[in-house]
């Protein structure tokens, strides 16, 4: 099997260049596959293009069949109209076992910007599906990508690489909010300020079913814009106290230089809240809520950006601790995959060799038994067994050598030598 990958990722290439090399639409991918098929008809291809990486996988049965690394780079350059000089050293290349390992690591989210993030598996699956739709796949890429899905599933089930949330908004809603409330469908969400972080948090809250969203902002116009976008209502800033008492979830992201809600203000606002739980996500720096607000009563749950980041960091550390285990699985699966592939490649030669030698033996034995008809059944069986043992002993060294070589890659040279040495008639 000859597999190689030419790629650039978020780790090696700036976003500006990745954007230029990306295959942004299905149409663009279809055109790319048409070009690849036309230019390299003997090769199978899969293009993986996400916001963090652009990768082209190529696989062929035979060695020394195009494309080469340079030819793939040239294809990328020409297809996107990016001069080769602009690519510089941005494009990386792996071949053989390293290319297989790379794909397995990518699919297992070991190479992702956010370690263990789940989207990459779907993106790899989608890339494989599009390649199939464009008739760019063959037996090698089928085996390779199906193997990648299997490895990804194994890493997810056997390690904690994908356990725990790692973004502030997801930790706030998923780890803390969902530990307080059963559901968000009947909760009033108050957003103070209209910052970017508020939007991200609202996205998670909406995903959890939040319906009633109230935006209170000093600029009513900006508040209205945010409220409209998320299906909520904007209220003037002087209604803040009223909503502080009514809200179940409060997301605060103002740019105020000092806390806008102190203990006295919140205690007064909460007087009519009947002790119901309130979940406050203070994403502002400096903080919008005075730290003492959390101690007003046992049902006030206040999280500032520092507390949320600490949890994110803790989850990240736990994920990082799983890298070695995940890599061991990838290495093990890479070896198994290559062994299976190479075994398949050498299988026909081994069968042919055994069959050829057995035929020679059988012919010779037939002649021998024809000459010595006095031999009884036991004697004949004994001779047959002896000859079989001799054949096996003679075949053992070349077959072992073939197996040893197959562990490192398809042993084209040795396979060719065996063909020439033993199949002289073909």
């Amino acid at each position, binding site marked *: 099997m000859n597999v190689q990958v030419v790629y650039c990722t978020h780790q090696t290439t700036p976003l500006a260049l990745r954007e230029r090399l990306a295959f942004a639409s299905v149409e663009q991918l279809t055109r790319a596959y048409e070009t690849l098929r036309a230019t390299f008809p003997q090769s199978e291809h899969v293009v993986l293009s996400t916001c963090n990486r652009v990768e082209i996988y190529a696989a062929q049965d035979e060695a020394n069949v195009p494309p080469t690394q340079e030819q793939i780079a040239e294809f990328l350059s020409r297809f996107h109209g990016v001069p080769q000089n602009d690519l510089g050293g941005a494009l990386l290349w792996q071949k053989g076992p390293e290319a297989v390992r790379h794909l397995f690591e990518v699919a297992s989210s070991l190479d992702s910007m956010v370690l263990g993030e789940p989207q990459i598996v779907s993106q790899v699956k989608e890339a494989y599906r599009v390649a199939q739709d464009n008739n760019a796949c063959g037996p090698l890429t089928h085996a390779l990508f199906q193997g990648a899905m299997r490895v990804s599933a194994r890493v997810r089930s056997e390690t904690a690489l994908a356990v725990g949330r790692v973004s502030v908004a997801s930790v706030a809603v998923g780890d*803390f909010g969902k*530990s307080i*409330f*059963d559901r968000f469908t009947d909760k009033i969400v108050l957003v103070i300020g209209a910052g970017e972080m508020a939007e991200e948090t609202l996205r998670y809250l909406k995903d959890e079913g939040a319906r009633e969203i109230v935006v209170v902002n000093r600029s009513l116009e900006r508040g209205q814009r945010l409220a409209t976008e998320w299906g909520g209502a904007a209220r003037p800033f002087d209604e803040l106290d009223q909503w502080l008492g009514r809200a179940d979830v409060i997301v605060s992201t103002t740019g105020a230089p000092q806390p806008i809600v102190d203990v006295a203000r919140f205690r007064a606002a909460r007087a009519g809240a009947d002790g119901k739980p309130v979940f406050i996500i203070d994403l502002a720096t400096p903080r919008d809520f005075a730290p003492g607000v959390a101690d007003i009563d*046992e049902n006030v749950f206040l999280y500032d950006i520092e507390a949320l980041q600490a949890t994110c960091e803790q989850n990240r550390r736990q994920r990082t601790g799983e890298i070695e285990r995940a890599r061991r699985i990838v290495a093990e699966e890479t070896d198994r995959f290559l062994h299976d592939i190479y075994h398949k490649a050498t299988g026909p030669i081994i069968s042919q060799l055994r069959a050829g030698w057995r035929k020679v033996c059988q012919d010779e034995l037939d002649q021998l038994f024809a000459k010595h008809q006095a031999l009884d059944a036991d004697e004949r069986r004994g001779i047959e067994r002896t000859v079989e043992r001799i054949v096996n002993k003679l075949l053992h060294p070349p077959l072992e050598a073939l197996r040893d070589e197959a562990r490192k890659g398809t042993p084209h040279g040795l396979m060719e030598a065996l063909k020439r040495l033993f199949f002289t008639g073909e």
Partner: protein
Amino acid sequence: MANVHVFCFFASYVVALALEGLAVARRSSTLRALGFGFAVAGLLAQTFYLISRSNAADLPPLLSSSHDWLLVLAWLAVVFDLTLSSVLSLSGRGTPMGLFLLPVVLLLIGASDLVGEATSPAMSAATDVVRRGAEERALRGWGMLHASLLVFGIGGVIVGFLFSVMYVVQHRRLKDPRSVPSGLKLPSLATLARLNWWSVILSFPLLTLGMLTGIRLVYLSRNTQGPISFSDPLVVGSGLVWLLMVAFLSWLLRGDHVGGKQVALRTIWAFGLVLATLLGLQVLFNGHTSAPAQRGAAAQPESSAARMEGAARQ
């Protein structure tokens, strides 16, 4: 089946608990699955043990002795643990129920070892297959109802107690995220408060009915070998426990504006006291005692086969 001893399932549950703890610390689903397997193995062993005991005493385990009654309670707790763990696991929430339930299970099994294995004198009368009449059948039926209601009522108390402990742990985690291991995933406060409420609401009528059937049982047992007296410490203690439950329930239903954590803490105190009293009474007084004159006669367990043999000799 006859070779299964209490130690077999006790040890299985200890290992299951240790694995569950390790699974939380290391966030390992493999360890959790292994712990689940040990708990299932323990449950099977315990089931065989109870069947074997029941066959030997010719009585359902609930009636045969305090030892068996406590083991049935522990058995129900394990079934509840495994069922809930499976449901939560299938719904993608890996709440380590065993971490909370198994210590109680071990406590119940430990307590069962301290109480007598002898059949209650009153119930011995109900096992007499030779002379079983209408009165004995009634005694057996009421005894079964009484024991079942109490076992489910106390089961509810245990569950309520554990949900309250979980509420307090979850509340602590939410107030100070670093205070609790991050691998410990618990249901939301709202869910725990609701489950706690239902466990109180369901266990109270069960215990009340258990008390009422107990009074009937005292009445029915008066003509047996071992009549139960109203001054029996277990009867008196159960009455006090019931009064405590009444007080707690009325406080809960009064609907004062107290937070969920206060409810949980008071449930822990109330239910903890109920459990401690009931277990303490069982251990100290060895189940329902018979009248002093008859104690010696019915203290030893006797298989129905042996009793029948004796009857035949007469």
